[in-house]
């Protein structure tokens, strides 16, 4: 079995939904199609996100106000939910801050 290893990171308060963990290394099981971020979001929902899903997800994407960054680049430049995850990618979900 070839699993796909990915580093998932949370910041800006999004980590509060994940037991306050800022970094989680996960192994995605092998499957027929390639792993995209859309699939990863479902995996996160089923495996990591225990509560208040609406604070993180909306439809098949993240909720407004969460930025997704793949290897320090805005996912908008990487085909958003359709980005095909590569081994050891660093995928950061950051909630934007508004305080001052």
């Amino acid at each position, binding site marked *: 079995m070839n699993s796909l290893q990915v580093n998932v990171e949370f910041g800006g308060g999004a980590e509060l939904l994940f037991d306050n963990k800022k970094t989680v290394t996960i192994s995605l099981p092998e499957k027929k199609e390639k792993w995209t971020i859309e699939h990863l979001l479902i995996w996160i929902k089923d495996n990591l996100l225990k509560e208040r899903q609406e604070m993180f997800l909306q439809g098949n994407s993240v909720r407004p106000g969460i930025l997704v960054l793949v290897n320090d680049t805005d996912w908008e430049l990487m085909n958003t939910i359709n980005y095909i995850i590569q081994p050891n990618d660093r995928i950061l979900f950051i909630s934007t801050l508004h305080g*001052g």
Partner: protein
Amino acid sequence: MTTNKKELENEIRTLKEILYQKEKELEQLNKVFEKSSNLSPSEISRYSRQIILPSVGVEGQLTLKKSAVLIVGVGGLGCPAGQYLAAAGIGKLDILDSDEVEITNLHRQILHVERNIGETKVKSGYDSLKRLNSNVEVNPLELHANGETLQKVFSENKYDVVVDCTDNVATRYLLNDMCVFNKVPLVSGSALQLEGQLTVYNYKKGLCYRCLFPVPPPPQTVTSCGEGGVLGAIPGVIGVLQALEVIKILLDFPGVLSGRLLIFDGSDTVFRNIKLRQRNPQCVVCGDNPVITKPIDYEQFCGSKAADKVTDIKILNSNDETDVKEFNSITKKIVIDVRQEAEFQMCHLPNSINIPYKNIVKGINLEALNEILTGVNDNEKVYFLCRRGNDSQRAVSLLKEKFNDSCAILLSVAGGLNAYSKLIDPSFPLY
């Protein structure tokens, strides 16, 4: 003794007001003398440490002197940003805020000092900045930022850069749009708890706030500094970096933080620089065919108030609530404080039991609560208490459903500990 203290405080307040007016009068008189387009000997000495930088030089210093910057929000970000901009010799610095200085501001809003409590932030900020650099024209704008007030401010002034030091989503969209309409770069900072974020919008065809966030976040996902807390040095770091970006824009440096987002995590002292998307040609405000060409109703758009103050809720019937006076009159009672652990440690009523609301929601660590609610006598009252009386309402509402077979009467204390401090015991900390 108390009357003397009150009288003295009032006298000092009046004298300060007179001093403030006189200083402003003097500034108006000074303005009559046309500002020299050269640097005076004292200005050369004063700014020499930055003038000798090849990338600044005399020309750069003169550019700063001719520049006008608007800082919106004289709080955790606006104070350090204003301080470094005034010190650097920006010609005209307008500061806009409608709040007054509170004691809870002082750990991070470093232009304000103890004796400024109760004054407007713009007045206190004006005093501090003028004391730091009297060469700078500082204009205190005591206004609530909304479409109307900002349109007036922008029509009467020409700004080279605007600094977003605000504390709420609605004002951030408003400022973005105003900067797009008026073609002014926007240096945007934010901070919460131990993290900060910084970027520059609307700079040389770069993206704007709406390109990055076309849809505002759901209001319940937004946390304010008053709720989530913030370590003072965090907005300090971001505010100082905002001042740096302003100066770089004014001096046309090549490395301005546009199209990039700086994320600062103070807990690990890590700075990350994220590459952002480009300007969206379909953006409703800065796109090729903009739909929004004048300010909209931002509070409606965001579903939240243009302030970081908490709005009080009312979800219980009046027979599920009690006021602090009645609550206080009962000597022996069961009191459950549903605030977070850290808040409970900070201050709490004697004999109250801490069961955080977040645990009640998650349904974890509720053994103590179970024991209480199943062990009480028939019709015994159990009081729920929090900071303002909002979470205690939510807790009662939730628990009435969960423990519908309990014979206890669950009551939320209206107004919470804030009301207790104001009406019963002023020595109880108000925060």
